[in-house]
């Protein structure tokens, strides 16, 4: 007695193939929908903003005259912001990940902490803005400086970096640890010589993607009171500044139609910066990709 009836299989084959093709089409459609909207976005911004893109646009400060409005303060401000966010968040994030993966005992407490780090990654950015306002701007009296904003943004992306670093550390085969410990290496030697070199592509990719998120965030900056119109460049981390998304938000909310063009040009600049960062991430990933 056979359980699989060959005739029935043949009879049903047609229906199975139809379902198979149907789902393929469905998934293709899903991809096309997202691509379509992306294309519309790029087209609209490209056609609108490209006319305003020029060296002057990059080199001018903000102005109430659309034709004179430039993005210099915001671009440089965003770079300053990154100069604070990148080291702060990567050092804290990778440090926490190493502690959680390599040192912390695997018990309920650490499981609880792990889960909540992932949850933190989902907390709205405006909440981090309020946190930054309370701690850095007010309690530590940093004001609306690069430092205060940088620390706030670091907190915002810290969970993402921790999770990315934890995952790249966890992906390293246990055999490599065994090999190192088996030769009498200490934990620290194993971390520095085996674990970090193998985990670095994943850590850097995750960190750069997190930094791209930070460079595009507006809400926390608004909450901690970062100004929009600034006619000077910050000369240190204690100075105030403005950032690309703030500037774009301001332009796009102005009534004059001409400012929409300026905003589109600003978006192009922001997207180029993001694209550059993602390219760096991709290069790092490919260059350091290791096989085990």
């Amino acid at each position, binding site marked *: 007695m056979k359980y699989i009836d060959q005739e029935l299989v043949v009879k049903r084959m047609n229906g199975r193939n139809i379902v198979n093709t149907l789902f393929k089409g469905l998934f293709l459609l899903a991809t096309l929908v997202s691509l379509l909207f992306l294309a519309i976005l790029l087209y609209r911004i490209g056609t609108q903003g490209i006319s305003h893109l020029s060296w002057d646009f990059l080199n001018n400060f903000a102005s109430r005259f659309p034709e004179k409005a430039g993005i210099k303060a915001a671009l440089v401000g965003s770079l300053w912001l990154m100069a604070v966010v990148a080291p702060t968040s990567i050092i804290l994030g990778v440090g926490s990940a190493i502690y959680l993966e390599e040192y912390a*005992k*695997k018990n309920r407490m650490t499981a609880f902490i792990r889960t909540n780090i992932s949850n933190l990654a989902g907390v709205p950015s405006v909440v981090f803005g309020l946190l930054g306002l309370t701690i850095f701007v007010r309690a530590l009296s940093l004001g609306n400086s690069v430092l205060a904003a940088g620390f706030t943004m670091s907190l915002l992306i810290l969970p993402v970096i921790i999770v990315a670093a934890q995952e790249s550390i966890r992906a390293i*085969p246990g*055999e*490599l*640890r*065994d*090999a*190192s*410990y*088996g*030769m*009498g*290496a*200490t934990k620290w*030697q194993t971390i520095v*010589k*085996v674990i970090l*070199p*193998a985990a670095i592509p994943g850590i850097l990719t995750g960190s750069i993607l997190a930094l791209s998120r930070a460079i595009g965030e507006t809400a926390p900056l608004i909450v901690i009171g970062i100004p929009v119109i600034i006619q000077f460049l910050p000369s240190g981390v204690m100075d105030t500044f403005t950032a690309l998304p703030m500037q774009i938000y301001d332009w796009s909310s102005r009534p004059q139609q001409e400012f929409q063009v300026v905003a589109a040009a600003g978006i192009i600049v922001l997207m180029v910066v993001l694209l550059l960062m993602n390219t760096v991430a991709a290069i790092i990933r490919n260059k350091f990709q*290791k*096989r*085990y």
Partner: protein
Amino acid sequence: MTTVSIAKAKKGSNLNKVENTNSVYLTKQLNLWYGEKHALKNIDLDIKENEVTAIIGPSGCGKSTYIKTLNRMVELVPSVKTSGEILYRDRNIFDADYSVEELRTRVGMVFQKPNPFPKSIYDNIAYGPRIHGIKNKKILDEIVEKSLRGAAIWDEVKDRLTENAYSISGGQQQRICIARALAIEPDVILMDEPTSALDPISTLKIEELVQELKQDYSIIIVTHNMQQAARISDKTAFFLNGEVIEYDQTDAIFSNPSDKRTEDYISGRFG
């Protein structure tokens, strides 16, 4: 293949053997628990120097656990508890003032799956000496060459020392791992099923290597393969359910086991 023929083939090589009296590892009443699970029960074993000691037994009998206890790698598993003593060269390895790092520089280990680091062949071999503080390039070069020669792989890799260790075959990788263990100039080499992931020819090479290495090192090898134990070891311990059922000269174990369970296992009736 019958057990008798293995034993006969083995005898020739052991004729001029002098009975060895120096213990390298003396295990006394060792018990080990993984949480609630009692994995090793009252183990007593006296392992002699410059011999190959094979540990055989079915899966889950505790043989890998035991070999990992000898360099305390087993403690990387959380919730492991031990009692009893293991004297390595007359010193209890569980003593509070005996650091695991110190122990592991005396006891090298080769694992089941070849596990080179994703670094160059050279850096793999130099890893151990470097972590123990050797920085001089010339000395490192010498250690690398000596270790690779010791693992009989120098001729195959001498022109590609800067290549990634993953660019060579699995059998070669395993010999790189043996060379890496030799580079810390150990006294004992622990091998945890070193050929189970390898093809027959690579296995043969490693078996030959083990025979050569025992001139200078004491070797303890866990193996699933009874023919392998018979071919390469001087003494064999048969583990079952966390206990040592029988421990004797390999010839005796394979030709005339004293315990019924040993006989059943080596004749393939279970396991």
